[in-house]
């Protein structure tokens, strides 16, 4: 049995599991506490699972790209659940200016014509004449990824998992508490807010896609992520409120309309699931490792959970165990956040 530092991780979403994994790898005695009955039942359950850091540059800062690139390594080598097949970005003919704007603001991309699109995704043959392709990007199935990470954690003798237990960072019998409770930490993190997201899962044997597809639209870009077995996750709305569980007809109209635009056969697909969650975000939509004494909050992952959780977890572990500083994800000087 390890006699390393005692570390209590609160919350078993992707941030909590990734943090528990990093501390476990560093020989700490880890106790993971989750108030729900199982892991990954919050935002992680509803995530798209796109590992698309270069696409994210369209509306995010460089730090998200850097953390994302680092995390792709984690999901392809350490807990290898991701497939690296790139991301395809499309727009309907009348929304072409959106594609030009997207191209201007992103790197590591190729411009494709209709034939090249068809070569990548034969089912889209003849449907789109222009696209952007981000060959280095990857995707994963979030639920499979959570299961894989959890089974790795169970393999550590120095990790204890407790589900169905209310946890608060108040108790101090641990050397470190890593608070990864997302929006539940709002009592401690006053500047945290919720950003609602709605998604759905479609099933159809008539469409084959082998990589995530974004459909750009001036009002609401929508992505479709293949989950295998004829299932497709379609997401996600971004609404400035913190209302969990209430899915609007408008959201479904927009998501289904986009899926139908990408391929009309989605009209006959079965809706196997709809979901709605609330993402935790800070005012700049960037994540924080915020230290309060022996507590480190890992929060504000916004819509970037799987994309950045491993890189944040690694930093949290080094911050606690080595006294390392990571100005790019702490509050000290926002200007330094640009350079990771």
């Amino acid at each position, binding site marked *: 049995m390890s006699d390393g530092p005692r570390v209590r991780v609160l919350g078993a979403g992707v941030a909590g599991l990734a943090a528990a994994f990093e501390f476990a790898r560093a020989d700490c005695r880890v106790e993971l506490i989750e108030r729900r009955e199982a892991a990954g039942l919050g935002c992680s359950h509803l995530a798209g699972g796109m590992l698309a850091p270069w696409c994210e540059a369209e509306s995010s800062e460089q730090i998200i790209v850097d953390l994302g690139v680092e995390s792709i390594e984690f999901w392809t080598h350490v807990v290898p659940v991701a497939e690296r097949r790139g991301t395809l970005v499309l727009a309907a003919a009348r929304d072409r200016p959106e594609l030009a704007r997207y191209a201007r603001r992103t790197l590591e991309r190729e411009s494709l014509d209709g034939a090249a699109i068809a070569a990548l995704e034969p089912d889209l043959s003849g449907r789109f004449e222009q696209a952007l392709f981000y060959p280095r990007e990857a995707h994963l199935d979030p639920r499979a990824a959570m299961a894989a990470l959890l089974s790795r954690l169970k393999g550590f003798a120095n990790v204890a998992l407790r589900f169905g237990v209310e946890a608060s960072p108040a108790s101090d019998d641990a050397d470190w508490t890593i608070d990864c409770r997302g929006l539940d930490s709002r009592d401690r993190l006053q500047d945290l807010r919720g950003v609602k997201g709605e998604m759905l899962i479609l099933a159809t044997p008539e469409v084959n896609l082998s990589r995530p597809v974004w459909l750009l639209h001036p009002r609401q870009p929508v992505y479709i992520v293949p989950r295998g077995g004829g299932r497709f996750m379609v997401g996600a709305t971004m*609404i400035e409120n913190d209302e969990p569980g209430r899915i609007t007809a408008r959201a479904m109209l927009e998501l289904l309309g986009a899926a139908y635009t990408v391929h009309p056969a989605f009209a006959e697909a079965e809706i196997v699931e709809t979901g709605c969650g609330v993402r935790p975000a800070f005012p700049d*939509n960037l994540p924080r490792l915020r230290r309060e004494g022996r507590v480190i909050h890992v929060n504000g992952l916004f819509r970037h959970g799987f994309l950045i959780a491993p890189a944040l977890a690694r930093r949290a572990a080094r911050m606690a165990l080595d006294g390392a500083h990571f100005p790019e994800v702490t509050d000290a000087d926002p200007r330094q956040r640009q350079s990771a």
Partner: protein
Amino acid sequence: MTKDALTLYGVALSSRLLAGTAQYPSPAILADAVRASGSEVATVSLRRESGAARAGETFWALIRGLGVKVLPNTAGCRTVKEAVTTAQMAREIFGTPWIKLEVIGEDDTLQPDVFGLVEAASILTRDGFQVFPYTTEDLVVAEKLLGAGCEVLMPWGAPIGSGRGLNNPYALRALRAHFPEIPLIIDAGLGAPSHAAAAMEMGYDAVLLNTAIARAGDPVGMARAFSLAVEAGRLAFLSDPMQPRDMAAPSTPVMGRAFTGVARA
């Protein structure tokens, strides 16, 4: 307050740029951009963010925290009833009689339904609201909105979010000439600061814009650019710009000078 103040329903403003609050990369960038724009009025949509139980409170608190006057809007409303209900909720949430009234008639162009607009404006003004109607450049509709009690008009430059600028300068000029005393604000369709400057040079009282700033690569830089353009355009309008003419009019006399018009070697 400067001499050249803009007065909207009795409120004097020194900035002639009204800012939108949607589609920014983050609330922090939104706040920085609104500050850089110098705007004293920010419009905020409620229809979608409100949810079932006013779940948008965090975001609204953020808007209130900008320290500008809030102009709630009915964006996304398609019927008179929706718009009126949204306006009433906005009044409760933000404690203001101001409402930017949008009744959308067509999904592709987000063109106003001017019949519904006039009806909703009339209901709301009777209920004590101070209505800022988002309308087209149509003169007759403008007359009816004024008849319904509106004291400000907000004709579009081009469809919302299209960034095309002033699509119909002739009609916009006619509207300006027809209502010299009514505050007219170009709302929607502006893409570049030059569009805003052109509207101001034409004598429009202010511009309201969102997408052109929010979706720029650097929203804060673009907010400042629009602020300068609005100021330049307004100053130009007040300074009586010269009229264009067909022939050159040299600024120094050429009469009697040898070889005028011969290219130098």
